[in-house]
């Protein structure tokens, strides 16, 4: 069976290294910097670093069948090493910015676990966080309804004009 992958291409990209300050949440650090630079869509790869606090969610099947899965309550992993994380920054509900981020954590008890990071409750440790950011000028991701899962998820979109001009 051939794949039905949805994709848009872009030749204009800008690459950055993002520094998030100690004590700042991942969400605040990403959003503040990218908003200030007028960047709306980017792919982000985090370097390993310590977190002062971390919370993530898993998504087991949704019992009633209304949606395919349902995120459970946040799992508090406490102070942890963020081993690896990938994120997509794009347009969420009503055009507001949205950060979708998954990551692997090494907790203080030595257990490795992870999932969908609650980026407003993942706080950079004393050395801060660094991430490589690739911002696309003419394309990106926008939240839309996925009829199969009945969930709103990121879809790739291309615009006729550049959305930033760094």
């Amino acid at each position, binding site marked *: 069976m*051939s*794949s*039905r*992958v*949805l*994709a*848009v*291409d*872009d*030749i204009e*990209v800008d690459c950055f290294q993002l520094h998030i300050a100690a004590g700042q949440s991942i969400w605040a650090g990403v959003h503040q910097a990218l908003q200030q630079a007028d960047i709306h*869509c980017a*792919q*982000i*790869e985090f370097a390993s670093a310590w977190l002062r606090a971390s919370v*993530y969610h*898993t*998504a*087991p*099947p949704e019992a009633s069948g209304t949606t*395919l*899965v349902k995120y459970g309550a946040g*799992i508090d992993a406490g102070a942890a090493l963020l*081993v*690896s*994380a*990938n*994120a*997509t920054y794009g347009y969420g509900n009503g055009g507001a910015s949205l950060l*979708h*981020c*998954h*990551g*692997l954590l090494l907790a203080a008890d030595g257990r*490795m*676990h*992870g*999932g*969908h990071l609650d980026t407003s409750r993942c706080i950079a440790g004393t050395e801060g966080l660094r991430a490589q950011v*690739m911002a*696309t000028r003419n*394309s*990106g*991701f926008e939240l839309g309804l*996925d009829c*199969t*899962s009945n*969930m709103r*998820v*990121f*879809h*790739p979109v291309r615009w006729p004009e550049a959305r930033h001009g760094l």
Partner: protein
Amino acid sequence: MDSKLIGGRYGRVFSARLLCNDDLVESVEELCASNGVRNAIVKGGLGSLFRARLEQAAADPSRTVEVQGYAVELLSLTGSVAIDAGTGRPAAALFGIVADNRGASYAGKFVRGAAPTCVTIELTVQEWLPEAVVAS
């Protein structure tokens, strides 16, 4: 065999979304094939799978781990795509970390046909356009 340094430049960047039940590896290969991409780097990806089979030993491809119990979250993804000399089609080598719905994590190389998308996967693929061998 000696190492070599290949010059080149990056080409198009693809922002992509995979749909429910479509396989992760096959979808990346399909994306490249349908867009005429011969070499590419998978810059990152995240989302969810129904399950994943991961190779965990290069010397023994049969040594795999099966991660079950959707949604298996794709936490991070890296890899590359190059033309398979035998088939003439793009072949993807994708590596990553996943977690099951209890949060337990696993890593390895994704086995083609054994990582169906659950809700969605977002990923970014960057074309690589090799030009010349600089040193070998």
